[in-house]
């Protein structure tokens, strides 16, 4: 078998350092925002006792599930033996680690007491999904690093498949776990449903792949490495498939809510009366994150154009963030169903007087923190591909597809 050659990303130092400088400053700004929040307390954010998780969590959860999805390509390559995806394995692993780190960092910096991180690492409540997630996340990091090692080090090659299979299950557990963070919240109408977990899995596939494609196309273009049409087509139709699946699950989700749990109130609120959240749902989640990319990816001509594919990826990411806004913030804004059959006239604690949703307006600091997390992920990726061999030298058709003749014809 021909071996795939990987090379460090070798764009011109000037441009590389420029890129790092930009990313680092975004990271630094995010860090300052976090420091400011830590020092002042959360009153400077838009979060309240009613909406307790907000913009930072939108970014964090998005990054975390995207991390799990990014690993998908490595699994397809090793576990399912699809040779064409093999060269993508390393980048896929790197992105998984990077996105997860970015997401976790945001999560940690948004804690009320980030200075007690060590407490979080030494005290565990094993009944808590969240605590399990801490293990799932660290385990994931270690596993992916091991997985990368098996891919890169020849001595490890033979463990690649078992580690890959293990990583795949772990990854599914991780997304399921992340989904379950919400899924087990019996308190709230929006969450308490089993379908949230598989929906998160399928979302992770789409978001991870979209980010992967963007990074792949950017790094390859900057350095002039070739990506063949075959692999591009495969990846973009895979993305289309995932996006379609998200739409399907969205539908099922609302149907179970209506028929299964009889939560008409919640469903009609999100679909019709939720104001900004309704807009995020229809415009962001369904249109921008679903229908538009589908239109592009299955379009007879646009689907062949890389710029359009990149645009579709961007749309999927935007749609993903919108979906998170609806799922995370929207569901908290919607009042808790404490007194069925009653209307709340007054309350000393914003219990949804007259059925009103809790208000939330993101503060700049929250957005900066979230974007900082994204920048951390990209920074790790940029450094990773530069110092280690993550990127295949070429994804040209004849390299990727073993049936095409070698260069010397």
């Amino acid at each position: 078998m021909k071996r795939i050659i990987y090379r460090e990303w070798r764009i011109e130092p000037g441009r590389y350092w420029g890129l790092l400088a930009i990313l680092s400053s975004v990271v630094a700004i995010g860090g300052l925002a976090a420091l400011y929040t830590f020092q002042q307390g959360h009153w400077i954010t838009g979060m309240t006792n009613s909406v307790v998780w907000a913009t930072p969590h939108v970014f964090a959860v998005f990054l975390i599930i995207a991390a799990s999805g990014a690993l998908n390509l490595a699994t397809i390559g090793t576990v399912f033996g699809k040779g064409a995806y093999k060269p993508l394995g390393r980048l896929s692993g790197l992105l998984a680690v990077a996105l997860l780190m970015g997401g976790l960092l945001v999560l940690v910096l948004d804690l009320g007491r980030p200075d007690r991180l060590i407490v979080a690492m030494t005290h565990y409540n094993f009944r808590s999904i969240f605590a399990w997630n801490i293990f799932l996340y660290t385990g994931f990091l270690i596993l992916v690093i091991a997985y990368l090692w098996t891919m890169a080090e020849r001595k490890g090659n033979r463990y690649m498949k078992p580690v890959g299979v293990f990583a795949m299950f772990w990854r599914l557990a991780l997304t399921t776990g992340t989904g379950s963070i919400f899924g087990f919240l019996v308190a709230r109408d929006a969450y308490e449903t089993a379908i949230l977990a598989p929906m998160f899995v399928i979302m992770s596939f789409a978001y991870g792949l979209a980010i992967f494609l963007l990074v792949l196309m950017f790094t390859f273009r900057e350095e002039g490495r070739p990506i063949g049409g075959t692999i591009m087509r495969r990846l973009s139709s895979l993305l289309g498939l995932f996006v379609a699946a998200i739409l399907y699950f969205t539908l099922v989700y609302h149907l179970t809510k209506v028929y299964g749990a009889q939560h008409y109130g919640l469903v009609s609120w999100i679909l019709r009366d939720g104001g900004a959240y309704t807009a995020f749902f229809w415009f962001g989640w369904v249109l921008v994150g679903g229908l538009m990319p589908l239109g592009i990816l299955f379009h007879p001509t646009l689907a062949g154009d890389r710029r359009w594919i990149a645009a579709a990826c961007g749309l999927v990411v935007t749609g993903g963030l919108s979906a998170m806004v609806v799922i995370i913030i929207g569901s908290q804004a919607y009042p808790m169903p404490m007194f069925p059959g009653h209307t709340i006239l007054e309350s000393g604690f914003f219990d949804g007087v007259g059925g009103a949703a809790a208000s939330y307006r993101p503060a700049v600091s929250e957005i900066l923190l979230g974007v900082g997390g994204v920048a951390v992920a990209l920074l790790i990726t940029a450094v990773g591909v530069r110092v280690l061999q993550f990127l295949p030298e070429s994804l040209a058709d004849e390299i990727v597809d073993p049936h095409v003749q070698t260069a010397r014809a």
Partner: protein
Amino acid sequence: MAKADFQVPELQPYAEIPPLQPGTMSHSKPFVAKQEFQAPLGYPGELVDGWERKAIDKMGELLGKYRSLRVYLDSCVKCGSCTDKCHYYLGTKDPNNMPVGRQDLMRKVYRRHFTLAGRLFPKLVGASDFTREVLDEWYSYFHQCSQCRRCSVFCPYGIDTAEISMAAREIMDSIGVGQKYCNEIIGKVYKIGNNLGLPGPALKDTLEGLEEDVFDDTGVSVRYPIDEEGAEILLVTPSADFFAEPHVDGLIGYGKVFHEAGVSWTLSSHASEAANFGLFIGSYDNMRRIAQRIREAAIQLKVKRIVFGECGHAWRVAYSFLNTLAGPWDFLDPRYPVPQHICEFTHDLIRQGRLRFDKSRNDDMVLTFHDSCNVARASRMGERAGGQFEIPRAIIRATCNHFFDMEEETIRDRTFCCGGGGGLLTDDLMELRVKGAMPRIQALNNVIKEKGVTHMAAICAICKSQFTKVLPYYGMEMDQIVSLHQLVSNAIILTGQETGDEEDDEEAEGVSTEAA
């Protein structure tokens, strides 16, 4: 396959780090220089009385003269990063060929005589007196280092074993234990002007022959002048370029490039050698004496620029040391760096679109490129760091259609030595040369298998000679190694030359944009 009375390593699809086999190469020693070869360099002809004391004194002197030696002997923490980086270790499995193992041969003596810990607790820190056995080890293993500096790339302190083996050779020379191959050659340079001992008239003859050949080939009369006073450029090139294959094809190429550039140039019979073996024996004095010949030739021929031909360590001495050893060069044209590499010269022309190529003339070859170690790790081309990697590749891409790099770990600054550098290119070290070439040839073999590579281009006379000799041991052909300027020579379209077909022009256009 060439016959060998030792085991030729088997090539593997992947690089392996072999387990240690102590002593496998302790028998390997180059011939010792006799009186006649020692004397011209100012060294005693045989082991002197009281050599131990004298060697230690010499070591002390060198410690005071070379910061590198002092710092390197102190700083090593035995981290092990360098242990699997030397091609001689990889090819021979002898632990004394691990860079740090090699250094330790000197370090143990250094510790014994120059450090407090070694004086007080020699056992504890592994210190040892300079005994006859130690001297033998030195002679053996310091002549198993091609001074390629690969180890220094990976050492956290940049410890360069080459500096240490140079110092060791200098110390040994000073007590009368010299190596025949190097010292004989240096003697020839002093007497005749070049390593091969080719006298001026012979050179003239050869060059006239070349002019005829090129004319027959191309129908254009390209000149190969020597000792022409007033020429603009002095070309200093390794003497192998004058006759041996594939070197001479490179020289033909230089001539064609100069011709197309329209500059006047000349060789010199006084400085008819680019290589400077003074480097190998670590002798500043000898290196300087050899380098001075170039200054003398430049003054005598009243040239304005100096250009060096393809040779690795020659380029190191030229690029890194010439200014120090034979400068200042204030009498030359200040618009050009002194000296220039022929690749820089050619590349500049390509960039300016002043050369036209028909790449298809090299279509019978699929190429890879061997970064010669002294070029890669001890010098530079062009204005920017790393130009020494990019410029030759740019030239290949401009002149050939099929080019593939070898594995990343074995090229650029991580390149493997050909196995013949550092004054070891002698038949009495054949076993070492064959085994030491293994890592490079293994990587070559892999691109041959996977990318269909047929030829490897190099820009060093030692590499070319070494590969010509060693490739057959590995079942390859000696002509699979080519000069870089041979590719230029093949592809270049000389002004006024009959062109084959109309496509050429278009091709040439394409090239210049690509190279720009």
